[in-house]
């Protein structure tokens, strides 16, 4: 059962005979029920409680209310994310959304591990959404967030990367606010320093020091490129021997799983489980990963084809 790019679960079916006609109906039933579940799950505590396996702390409850689905996208472009520890988030979050031909994708890491961190990240997410929904340019969107934090949460700050991908042209714009640089994976390898940019302070800091203008940077993606956003909790996760999970292990995992034919959302599911296991199921810091994939050849085929198969995606 899927809603757009989001995997909801599966439909189990019993039938004495499972011929072509009945299989087709199973698929139809799964599609309709996906819509029913999606329309009801956000505001039904019954659904929400059903998919939890343990208690959740209050800061996490607050931050989760702001999180979008794990995956968004359409044929040819997908953004998918995971974050842990699922029931005890500090200040990590991701956001993504498709508006016409722009895919917005961002990652945030609010300073600290308490309610104030979660609150800061929530304000940052709301600020960025407010900016993009009112058509603000990337730098002025971040400047508005800087200003809001300075006014309402003056002791807090939040690092992050905010990206906008033009799905038609492949132009990626991003603004990095004191966060680890995004990684570009091309032809099954990491392109070194491809998305580095001159350092800018975390959101909320500029107004405490001296107001600065935010700067956005551009690059043009090639078909098949993957962009990876992550928080330092991913690479700094420590194993039993004290060794960090590390950037190489992290990127190798993604490249290997993708080469083995796994879908992006499945790659991240396996990866976050591997990181949790590496650290003995007890993360000391939040770990968030967002993976964006661009396959324009599929987008053109989707527009031009009119094939029935295109409708499946």
């Amino acid at each position, binding site marked *: 059962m899927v809603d757009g790019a989001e995997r909801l679960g599966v439909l189990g079916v019993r*039938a004495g005979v499972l011929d072509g006609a009945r299989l087709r109906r199973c698929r139809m039933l799964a599609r309709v029920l996906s819509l*029913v*579940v999606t329309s009801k799950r956000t505001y*039904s505590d019954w659904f929400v409680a*059903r*998919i939890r396996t343990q208690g959740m702390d209050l800061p996490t409850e607050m931050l989760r209310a702001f999180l979008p689905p794990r995956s968004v996208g359409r044929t040819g472009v997908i953004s998918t994310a995971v974050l842990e520890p699922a029931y005890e988030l500090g200040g990590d979050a991701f956001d993504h959304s498709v508006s016409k031909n722009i895919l917005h994708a961002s990652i945030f890491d609010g300073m600290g591990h308490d309610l104030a961190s979660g609150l800061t990240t929530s304000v940052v997410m709301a600020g960025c959404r407010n900016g993009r929904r009112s058509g603000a340019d990337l730098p002025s969107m971040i400047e508005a967030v800087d200003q809001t934090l300075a006014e309402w949460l003056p002791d807090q700050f939040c690092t992050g990367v905010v990206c906008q991908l033009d799905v038609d042209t492949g132009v990626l714009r991003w603004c990095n606010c004191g966060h680890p640089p995004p990684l570009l994976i091309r032809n099954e390898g990491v392109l070194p320093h491809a998305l580095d940019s001159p350092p800018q302070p975390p959101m909320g800091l500029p107004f405490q020091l001296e107001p600065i203008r935010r700067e956005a940077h551009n690059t043009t993606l090639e078909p098949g490129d993957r962009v990876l956003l992550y928080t330092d909790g991913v690479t700094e996760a420590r194993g039993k021997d004290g060794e960090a999970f590390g950037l190489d292990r992290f990127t190798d995992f993604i490249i290997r799983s993708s080469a083995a034919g796994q879908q992006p959302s499945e790659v991240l599911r396996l990866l976050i489980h591997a990181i949790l296991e590496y650290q003995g199921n007890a993360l000391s810091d939040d770990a968030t990963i967002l993976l964006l994939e661009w396959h324009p050849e599929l987008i053109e085929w989707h527009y031009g084809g009119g094939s029935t198969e295109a409708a499946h995606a």
Partner: protein
Amino acid sequence: MVDRCDRAVTTGADEETLERLLAEANAIVPYRLPGLVNRCARALGLDSATIYLVDLQQHLLIPLDDQTDPLQVDSSEGGWAYRTL
């Protein structure tokens, strides 16, 4: 039962049933969904159907009804379906 299944297979699900089920799905309170899902399945010539939702950490597929056991995403047929979606 056999008659209804056969008719569904040969002539397609009848429109009235479809309309009634969709209207019900629209108005239903979530905890009664499992019953409706089963009625839909029977109307389509199947014996029964169960929705499994993935848990927050994507380890388990959790059935919406209370009589069925959860499935492991990593080691079940249902899990395979989920992993390859």
